[in-house]
C-alpha cells in the first residue's frame, strides 16, 4: 500500500502530519510525505504515484475551500484513492466533509491507532 501525506495549503503545523507518516510507515505502508501542497499538486501526485490513500492535514481552517478542489482534481484524473483528513476540524464541519467524499475525519484527540485500524479495514494489501 502506498499513502500520500500532505499539509493542505499554507497551514504551518507539521506535527500531526509527521506523526501520521511515521505511524503508517511503522505498519508497513509506503509513505510519500510531501509537506505543504495545493489541491492540484495533491491530485497530480496521487495520480503519478499511484497512491492508494491520500492523508491531508489542516489546522488553518482552509478545509472548506480547498478540499472540494482536491476532489475535483482527483475526479478529473480518475483517481479513486480514498481521502482522509486530520487536524483542527470543528465537529459541525464533519458532515459536509463526508458529503464531499472525505472517507474519514481524524479530528483533535483521535488516536493514531484509529487511523491504523481504518487502514487495516480498507481493502488492499494491509487488510485482514
Amino acid at each position, binding site marked *: 500500500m502506498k499513502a500520500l*501525506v500532505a*499539509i493542505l*495549503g*499554507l*497551514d*504551518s*503545523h*507539521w*506535527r500531526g*502530519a*509527521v*506523526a501520521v*507518516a*511515521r505511524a503508517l510507515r511503522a505498519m508497513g505502508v509506503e*509513505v510519500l*510525505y510531501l*509537506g*505543504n501542497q*495545493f489541491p492540484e499538486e495533491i491530485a497530480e501526485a496521487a495520480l503519478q504515484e499511484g497512491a492508494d490513500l491520500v492523508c491531508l492535514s489542516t489546522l*488553518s*481552517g*482552509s478545509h472548506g*475551500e*480547498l478540499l472540494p478542489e482536491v476532489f475535483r482534481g482527483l475526479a478529473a484524473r480518475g483517481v479513486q484513492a480514498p481521502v482522509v483528513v486530520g487536524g*483542527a476540524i*470543528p*465537529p*459541525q464541519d464533519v458532515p459536509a466533509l463526508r458529503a464531499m467524499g472525505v472517507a474519514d475525519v481524524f*479530528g*483533535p*484527540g483521535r*488516536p*493514531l*491507532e484509529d487511523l491504523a485500524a481504518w487502514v487495516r479495514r480498507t481493502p488492499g494489501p494491509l487488510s485482514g
Partner: protein
Amino acid sequence: MTERGDGDDREGIERERRRWLTERYAATPERAPRFETVSGLPLPPLATPADLAGQDWLGVLGFPGAPPYTRGAHPTMYRSRLPTVRPLAGFGTPEDTNARFRFLLAQGATGLSLTFDYPTLRGYDSDDPEARADAGKGGVAVDCLEDVEVLFDGIPVDRISVSLVTCNPGMAIVLLAMYVATARRRGLVPDCLAGTSQNDFLMETAVTTARRALPPAGAFRLECDTIEWAVRHLPRWNPVSFVGYNLRETGATAVEELAFCFTHARAVLRELGRRGLGVDAAAPRLSFFFSAHRTFFEEIAKYRAARRLWHRMVTEEFGATESRAGILRFHVQTSGVTLTAQQPLNNAVRAAYQALAALLGGAQSLHVAAHDEAYCLPTEGSARLAVRTQQIIQHESGVAEAVDPLGGAWLLEQLTDEIERRTRELCAEVEARGGIVGATESGWLHARLVASAEAYRAGVTGGRLPVVGLNCFTEGDEGLPEVFAQPPTTARQAARIRRVKATRDAARCARALDDLERVLATNETTFPAVTAAVEAGATLAEVHERFRARYGAWTLPLA
C-alpha cells in the same frame, strides 16, 4: 561557605532521610513505577534541605532584582507592577482585528499581541492564488502599510505595548517597518513605541512548515538586521522574542525549550558584537517567550533556572557589566498543546493553573489560552474568560503580593538546579553541532523535535501521561456551544491591494525595491531599505520577492 537555607546538618538529614525511606516510606507501595515531569525529569518522593546544602545561597539564589536573578527580575516584582494582560488577537481583515483589539482593551487587557494569517507569515499577499483559502485565517491579513494603519486606528500606540507575533525574520522586518511608519504618519517619534517583535529564524526552519521559507543563514541575517536597527533607534522595543513557547508546542521538552533559546541568543549576541554592538547594549533588548506546560513545578523551576542561566551566560561568557544586560525578561503563554477537543471547558481549568505557574515563576507578561483553542480562534466569550482568568489570579489569589513566594521550597530549588544543569549540557551539544544555525541546517534540531513530539504522543496514547477527558474520565463530552467562524477576507484585502497599487508612485516603489535588493547584497542592515519600500507602497509579497531572490528557498528536512 554560606550554606543555603537550613541545610546545616547535611549528613544528619541525609542519614535520616535514608532511614525514613526504608523504614516508613517503603512500607506503602507507590501507585506508579516511576514519577517524573512531562519532560522526563525525575521527581523524588521528598526533597530535603540536604538536597541543597553546600551551595552558596547568595550566589545561587540571592535576592530578587539582584544577580543571579533566580528569584525575580525586579526587587518588588508584582507588588509594584502586575504582569501585562496581553491576549493574542488576529483574524480576518485589519478592520475585523481592530474591533477585537478594542473589545479586549475594554475587558482590561493592558497590552496587545497581534497574530497574522498564514499567507502574511509566509510572505504572500492576500490576492495570490495560493493564498486565497488561507487569507484571514489564524491571524489578520496584512499586505501593505495601510493595513497596519487600519489595524491600530484609535489604539494609543505611544502608550500601550504591542507584541507583533510575526514569527519569522522575513516577516518581522516588514511588519516592524510598517509599524514604525504608521507611528511616523501619526506624527509620533518612533522612540515612543514599546513592544516586541517575534523575530526568530527557527520559526520557519524548524518549528513550522512553510513552502517558501528562507534558509536558516539568510533568515538569521534579517533577524539580526532588525535587532541591530532597533537597538540603535527604538529604545523601548524588544526586537526579538526567542520562541521557546513554539518549540515546546512543537514537541520540545522544558530543557530543549531553554537550550534552543539560549544557544540562539548566544549566536545573536556574537553576531551583534561583530556589528559593533556590545553585550551591554544588545543583551537588555533581547526578550524571551516561554510556555507554561502541564507539570506545575517543572514550569516554575524552568523560569527561575532561565533567569539564572541568562545572567551567568551574559556575564561569564560575554563579560556584561551593565546590570540590565543580565536580567532575563519573558512573556508566557499557557500551553495550547495540552488542551483537548474533548470536554473543552476543562481547558479553562488547565489554563488557569498554567497561568498560576507563570506568575509564581515571575513572568513579565501573560497570555492565557482560551478553552476553545483545539478547534478555533477564540470567540469574544472565550477570550474574555481567558482575560478574567489572569485577572482573578492577579487580583484575588494573593500570589502577586509576595515576591518569589516559592523560593526556598526544597523540591522547587532542586528542580531549578536540575533544569539548569541539563540545559547547560544540551547547550554544549548544540554548540558542538555547529551552533543553532548549523544544527538547524543539518536537520539535527528538527529530528530532535520530532523525537520529543513522538515521546509525548506515545505517552498520551499509552496512558503514561493521563489527559482528563481524552484518555481517562472520558464520559460526558458536551462539546462547544459556539465555534468562532473566521470572516471571509480575500476579496476585501484584494480590493485594498488593487487600490494601493493603482495609486502609489510606481517609479518610487520600484526604485525602493531595487535599492533593497542592492542592500541585501551587502552586509549593511536592511531595515532602512525595507522601511523605504513599505512607505513607497510596496506590498509584503513584493518585499519578500527580493528576500527570496537573494537567499532562495529552503525545505525543512521533514519526516
